[in-house]
């Protein structure tokens, strides 16, 4: 499928207020067709509300939402060609897995034979062939998630919405599902929009992402852009574990008097005679290396020390060196 010029989803100055709370505040957003798009942010940042505005479970207070170029302001959720994978999966407990998956076709009036065949195909797609006769209550968390995915895909939506799709799974399963979701999206060519508060998930799965903060989008870009060149302190802080340096420290590090970010992996520990140095306050073992925190002029600076290198003991002094090009000065404070 070749991506067309029309975005799959477009927000034009969309706001959603709950009383005095501006859950979504004047958001402009454009999600390209065929994209794997992540909405990343802490809880209460407005990302889930945005998802609910696309699916139609919530109506914007003001602004316009377009799906494939068509204004959906007046279109109820059951007529939007958009389907959702819910965070709690929301499988119907009184139906078999097969009937759950076939539900979208059942309410459309597709005959029983056809819809059950199609449900079986989708169960095969999500690697659960032969599970049709079971009840959702008999499945594990990971299996339920696959059923929810199959159910949401049976109507062949143009946009698939995923609300914290992997949130309830344990780490190992989550990583496996990340790869699978990514592969599935490539294969189907459907636009995936997923909401997450997990920065690793967003960075590893999405082709582009929006970072939400207080109902606004703090930054939109590819994972590399957002990770390497955060626009604001909030983004630098939230996406990954970057050091955020205040203006005076930025200057000490050789930059202008502005806020900047510096990745822990861009820093190296040197002898205590270096021009920039600090006191080691904490050491955290991460497996592939250690994260050493130093206090430099009142600010905590984290350094990633790869496995094999010497780890200083807390309380001692250590110097810092880094590649000046990796110091990213931020446009806003």
């Amino acid at each position, binding site marked *: 499928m070749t991506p067309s010029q029309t975005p799959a989803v477009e927000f034009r100055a969309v706001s959603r207020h709950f009383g005095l709370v501006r859950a979504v505040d004047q958001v402009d957003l454009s999600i390209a067709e065929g994209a794997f798009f992540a909405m990343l942010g802490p809880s209460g940042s407005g990302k889930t509300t945005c998802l609910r505005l696309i699916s139609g479970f919530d109506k914007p207070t003001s602004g316009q939402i377009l799906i494939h170029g068509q204004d959906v302001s007046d279109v109820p959720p059951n007529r939007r060609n958009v389907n959702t994978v819910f965070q709690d999966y929301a499988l119907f407990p009184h139906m078999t897995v097969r009937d759950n998956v076939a*539900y979208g076709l059942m309410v459309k009036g597709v005959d029983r034979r056809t819809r059950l065949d199609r449900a079986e195909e989708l169960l095969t797609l999500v690697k659960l062939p032969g599970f049709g006769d079971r009840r959702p209550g008999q499945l594990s968390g990971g299996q339920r998630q696959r059923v929810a995915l199959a159910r949401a895909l049976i109507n062949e939506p143009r946009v698939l919405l995923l609300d914290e799709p992997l949130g309830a799974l344990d780490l190992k399963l989550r990583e496996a599902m990340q790869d699978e979701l990514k592969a599935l999206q490539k294969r189907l060519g459907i636009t995936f929009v997923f909401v997450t508060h997990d920065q690793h998930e967003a960075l590893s799965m999405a082709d582009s992402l929006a970072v939400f903060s207080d109902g606004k989008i703090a930054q939109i870009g590819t994972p590399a852009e957002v990770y390497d060149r955060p626009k604001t302190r909030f983004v630098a802080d939230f996406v990954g574990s970057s050091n955020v340096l205040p203006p005076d420290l930025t200057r000490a590090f050789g930059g202008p008097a502005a806020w900047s970010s510096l990745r822990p992996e861009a820093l190296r520990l040197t002898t205590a005679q270096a021009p920039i140095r600090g006191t080691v306050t904490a050491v955290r073992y991460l497996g592939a290396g250690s994260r050493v925190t130093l206090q430099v002029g009142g600010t905590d600076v984290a350094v990633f020390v790869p496995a094999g290198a010497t780890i200083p003991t807390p309380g001692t002094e250590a110097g810092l060196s880094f590649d000046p090009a990796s110091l990213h000065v931020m446009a806003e404070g």
Partner: protein
Amino acid sequence: MRDAPAILPERGLADRLTATFWRHPRLLLILLLAPPLLWLGVVYLGSLAALLLQSFYAIDEFSGVVVPEFTLKTYADLLRAQNLDIILRTLLMASLVTLASALIAFPIAYFAARYARGRWKALFYLGVMLPLWSSYLVKVYAWKLILAREGIITWFADHAGAGPLLARALDEQWFGGSSLSTSPVGTFIVFVYIWMPYMILPMQVALERVPNTMLEASVDLGASRVQTFRTVVLPLALPGIVAGSIFTFSLTLGDYIIPQIIGNSARFIGLAVYQFQGTAGNLPLAAAFAVVPIVIMLVYLAIAKRMGAFDAI
């Protein structure tokens, strides 16, 4: 901290009891269950057995004395036309009362479960429970006045120009009487009113247990409101509806006061039991009548189970 003992000192009886229960976990269970099981076993099941036994005796028609010998004569009596009439009338009334209660209760329970929050929820509980705080007899007599020929309904109908319509309706054989308070429809109205809370509350609990995302998922997949109701809400709320209907159905089957005060003095099962064990002195027949609601309820539950009413529990 190093000097602290590994085992803390026992502080008294409560600690000793805790230790005993920890060592013998079943003991607590037995202590908790014994009184209710004794009550249920001896008092309830015992009297039920005595009742069943009575129904297999019969009275001697000349002396009116109960003959303690096994016989099916009393059950044969039960199937006589005038007694069968009582059973069918009660069954019809209980079914209609249950159906009407379900229809009226559903929107109320749905509102309370899905929309009411905070103060509205408190108001809902108050509104549903308040009638239960006043005496049943007071309510029934209040209804007698409301439904009487001089009551507010007739007054309202007269002033709204519907007086002749009401009078015509009351002329109908199956339904009417000289006024609403002496007609079967009056009995029906009061039954529905009195048992309504018992339908609303279990329904509300069942509806509350249906998560909102379940309804959203249905709509998301393209279902209309009606389809969502039929395929998701109703099946998931069914256990609650069945629970409510068990209350309204069995309470109507057994009641003997409302038909005495309101209606055309046609007899219902409860009233028949009351009269046979009292003035008529036919204890076996009263017992046989009392068995009827039990059998009906068992059949009803079997049908409900067959229909999958309890699958979602």
